[in-house]
Structures are given as C-alpha cells and as structure tokens.
C-alpha cells in the first residue's frame, strides 16, 4: 500500500497544502464533492430494490416482470440524468480552468478560500445533522398520520403506533397516490428512506465529522508550532538581556550618569519586548487551550454520531437476527428429529435383515414341517410389521428433509439482511474512523527561566508551593501579565477588599475573580465569562499543585 492510499478519506479531500490553499485544491475538492454525490445516487438506486422485490413476491410472473422493468427504467433514468449532469459540469469546469489559466489571478486569502471550500463541500450545512436524517426523522417523529400495528409479545397483543406520514414532500399527484397505498406499503416506503438515512446520511455525517476533526487537529498543531516559535524568541531575548546586564555591571563604574541612563533605557526596551513576547505567548496558550477543547469536542461529537448510527443499525438488524435465531432453533430441532428417525430406521433394517436370514435358514435347523410352518408364519408376520415401521419412518424422514430445506430457504432473507447491515456498519466504521489521523499531542507549557533583573515571566518557576497557603500575590501578578491587552487586569488592593487573603484556596480565588465587575474590560460582555474561564484554565497550568 502506498502512502497516498494510507491517507484517511477526508485527508484526500484537502491535503497537507490546506493552509496554502490554491485553486487546484478547490477544483479537486469540488470534483470530490461531485464524486460523493454520484456515490450517494448510486447507493440510492440500489437501496430500495430489495424491499420492492419482496413486496412483488406474491404477484403473477407477468406482473412482477412489468414492475421489474419499471424499476429498471427508474434506476436508469436516475443514473443517466446524473451522468449527463456530470458531463455538463465537467465541460463547464474545463472552460473555467482554461479561462483561469490564461489570466493572472490574484490569490484569495487562506480563510476565505477555506470557507468557500467548506461551503462547496457542503460541510457547513451537514455539520451535526444530515439533511436526509432531518427530513426523515422529523417527518417520522411528527407522527401526524399514523397507523396502528398489532405486535404479539409473549402471548399478549401490544398496539404500536407507526407513522405513515411521507418522509419527503410529495407533489399533489404523488401525495394522492401515496395516500392510496396500504399502511403496509407506506411503511415499506418509509423504511426504505430510513435505510437511505443510515447508509448515505451516516456516511455524509461521519465524513463531515471526520473532516472537521482532521482540520481542527491540524490547526492545533499549527498553533502549537507558533507557540514553540514564541518560546525560541523568548529564550533568545532572555539570553540577550542576561548578556546586556553582565555588560552593564562591568562598565557601570566607567560611565557617566547620562550614558548610564541611555544604556538603562535600552535595557528597559529589551525587557519590555520580552514582556510583550511573554504576553503574546500566553495569549497563544489560551488559543491552544481553546483549540484543544474544540478538537476534543469534535472527537466526542464524532463518537456520538457513530453511536447514533450503531444504535440505528442494531435496531434495524434486531428483527432479522431474532428471526434468524428462531429459524436456527427450529432447524436444530428438525435435524435432531431426523437423526433420531434415521437411527431407528437403521435399527429396523438390521432387525429385518436378521429375521430374513433366519427365515431363509429355517429348513436347515432340523425342525419338523409343522414347526417350520409355525415359525415361518411368526417370522413373516414380524417382517411385515417391521416393513410398515420402516415405511412410516421413511415418510417422516422425507417430511423432515422437506422441512429442513424450507427453513434453510427461509434463512436466506434474514441472513442476507444481517450480513448487509453488518457490512453497512463496517462501511460506516471506515468512514468515521480517525485511527489514521495522528492525534496532535497537547504540550504542557514549558517553565522558562527568566533573567533575574527582568520582570517575572508568566511561567517563571518561582511559585511557592504550600499545602495550606495559596500565593495570592503570585497569582494576581501572573494574571495581570496575561491581561494587559484585554483590560482584565486586577488590582491587588481591589482584590484584598473584604477578603481574608491568607486563607483562600485556588477555587475561592477563581470564584472571587468570576464575580468581579471588570469595568475596564475591552472584552464584549457576552464573551467575558468564557474569557475569564480560559484565563483561569491557563493559570491552573501554573498553579496545578493547588486546589
């Protein structure tokens, strides 16, 4: 298998160059979306026929042939129209490509192209809910038009309401035709749509979910790499600052006050750049933390979709499996009976052979004519009796063989159904599997050493760990380091008002902060709660030893 083949399905839609999007990617994405549509249609053309074939089983041969031809026509018309539409698309697409290649086109921004690709792929519209699933389920669940099915469970009759509302909007002509159908036929039609929902809708939703997971996993990787760049820059600048401080201490005595002031100004500029970088890095950590949550949430969503379809398939498979279990039980019982009869037959045959032998040997035993006659009569009568039993046994074996053949035939439909649903499950597992997507590990932020003379950095490892005393001052200082740009800095004296500081825990500190007014905040009111929570999550990375 080549590397290309190993790529997950969604990865082939938009590849590694996703972030450097160009028209080739968009063309490819659209072509793949077209292929998907074709695949959907191909499945749709296959999916209804087993149900229809089943319902024409009782018709006369001539009539079934008419229906089969109608079915074939409908199938050909569907596939033919789609093929024609594809040909038209291909031709127009080629024209656009030719036109584009002859002009110098300014590239669009990455975000707008990505957004367009997602729209073209229909990812935004299918995210979370399948249009097919929605239409089917909402219609079925609306249950305005229902029929009642009587189900026998353990001898008692249970009335079960079944919706017979058409799962899609029909034209008035077709609506009238649909209404003329028997409840059973309506149920068959609805079941057919449910099948489409599982096999096609499931694939669409799982592939959309997988695509989103893949994309946000990639984005997390990108953000973490950017975070690593900040680390490198901070390291370089810290080193530079250290050297600067050493140089100042060596030449301090030789400089006049003006020169010294100038050098200190330069040093402050460096220190201020370092603080700026640390703030940026902290903001980056918040972005990474949000992105990781989003990515993991999408994984959870995908699991949910998968579970939903697993349950739907299990529900569809269940009646066939039950039917199959009952048939297997009956078959085992018939086979056991047949073996019993065959064994009896063998015994009778052996006894008969023995008696026939005795009859043939009677004259050689030295008996009188009278005894020979009497014994011969008894033996013949017994043989006749045994022959009757053998015929009876053979009749039973024949009946049982027919029964076994009938049950074996009856097993074909449920066996095929169970196999079909198992295969559908396997296909959905393949479409929803993220095994081939390498999960980007979430890095724990490094604790960086900071030059003694600079402002303490956010990750500086000088947090005093104490089991019973929480370092409020350290917490507020670090909080303020990550709150310079959004106006969420906290004044220690405001915090100390009405608080018995020395006895607070991390949770209590967070609770106080979440209730503070933040009148200088530049964060929109509706985002404030989330922003505070994200900051608290980031602070917990540093203060992880406190509760």
């Amino acid at each position, binding site marked *: 298998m080549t590397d290309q083949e190993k790529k997950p399905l969604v990865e082939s839609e938009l590849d590694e160059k996703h972030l450097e999007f160009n028209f080739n990617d968009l063309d490819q994405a659209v072509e793949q979306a077209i292929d998907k549509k074709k695949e959907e249609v191909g499945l749709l053309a296959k999916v209804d026929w087993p149900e229809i074939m089943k319902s024409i089983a009782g018709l006369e041969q001539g009539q079934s042939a008419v229906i089969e031809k109608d079915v074939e026509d409908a199938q050909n018309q569907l596939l033919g129209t789609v093929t024609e539409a594809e040909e038209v698309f291909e031709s127009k697409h080629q024209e656009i490509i030719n036109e584009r290649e002859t002009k110098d086109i300014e*590239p669009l921004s990455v975000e707008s192209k990505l957004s367009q690709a997602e729209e073209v792929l229909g990812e935004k519209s299918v995210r979370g809910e399948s249009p097919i699933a929605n239409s089917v389920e909402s219609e079925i669940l609306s249950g305005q038009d229902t029929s009642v099915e009587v189900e026998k469970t353990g001898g008692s009759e249970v009335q079960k309401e079944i919706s017979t509302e058409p799962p899609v909007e029909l034209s008035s002509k077709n609506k009238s035709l649909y209404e003329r159908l028997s409840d059973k036929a309506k149920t068959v039609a609805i079941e057919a749509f449910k099948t489409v929902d599982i096999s096609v809708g499931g694939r669409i939703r799982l592939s959309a979910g997988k695509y989103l997971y893949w994309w946000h996993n990639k984005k997390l990787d990108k953000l973490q790499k950017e975070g690593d760049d900040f680390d490198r820059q901070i390291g370089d600048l810290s080193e530079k600052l250290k050297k600067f401080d050493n140089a100042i201490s060596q030449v301090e005595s030789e400089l006049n006050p003006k020169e010294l002031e100038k050098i200190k100004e330069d040093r402050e500029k460096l220190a201020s750049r370092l603080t700026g970088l640390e703030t940026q890095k902290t903001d980056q950590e918040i972005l990474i933390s949000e992105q990781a949550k989003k990515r993991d949430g999408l994984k959870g969503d995908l699991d949910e979709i998968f579970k939903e379809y697993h349950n739907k398939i299990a529900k569809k498979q269940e009646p066939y499996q039950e039917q199959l279990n009952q048939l297997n039980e009956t078959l085992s019982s018939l086979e056991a009976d047949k073996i019993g009869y065959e064994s009896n037959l063998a015994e009778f045959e052996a006894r008969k052979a023995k008696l026939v032998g005795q009859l043939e040997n009677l004259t050689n035993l030295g008996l009188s004519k009278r005894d020979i006659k009497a014994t011969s009569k008894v033996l013949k009568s017994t043989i006749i009796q045994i022959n009757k039993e053998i015929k009876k046994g053979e009749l039973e074996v024949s009946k049982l063989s027919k029964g076994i053949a009938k049950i074996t035939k009856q097993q074909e439909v449920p066996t095929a159904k169970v196999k079909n649903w198992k295969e559908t499950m396997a296909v959905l597992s393949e479409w929803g599997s993220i095994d081939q997507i390498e999960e980007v590990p979430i890095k724990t932020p490094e604790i960086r050493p900071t030059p003694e003379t600079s402002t303490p950095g956010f990750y500086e490892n000088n947090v005093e760990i104490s089991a019973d005393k929480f370092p409020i001052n350290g917490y507020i200082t670090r909080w303020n380091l990550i709150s310079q740009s959004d106006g969420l800095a906290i004044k220690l004296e405001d915090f100390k008002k009405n608080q018995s500081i020395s006895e607070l825990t991390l949770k209590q500190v967070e609770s106080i902060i979440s209730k503070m007014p933040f009148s200088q905040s530049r964060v929109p009111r509706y985002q404030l709660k989330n922003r505070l929570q994200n900051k608290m999550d980031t602070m917990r990375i540093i203060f992880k030893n406190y509760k």
Partner: protein
Amino acid sequence: MTEEQSKIELEKIYQEFTAKVEEAKKNYHQKIDEILAKIDEMKIAQVKKNLNI
C-alpha cells in the same frame, strides 16, 4: 476573469449540478411512489380475481 469571478462560476456550475441531481432524486422518489401504488393495485386486482368479485 478575476479569481472571485472564477470562484463564483465554479460555485454556480456546482450548484447547477447539485440541482439536477436533486431533481433526478425527486423524480426517482416519485417513480418509487408510482411503482408502490401500482404494486398495490395489482395485489388488490389479484385478490378480487381470486374471490371472483
């Protein structure tokens, strides 16, 4: 043709294709309805024939 126009054209032809597919699917579903109705009618006629109605 600018990139924006090119993109709009591409989207337009994709939408045209999608509309045709949706139309074909709709016709196909209608055909199913008709076939199901036909089967029903055939079955009813068969029952009537068997009962000499």
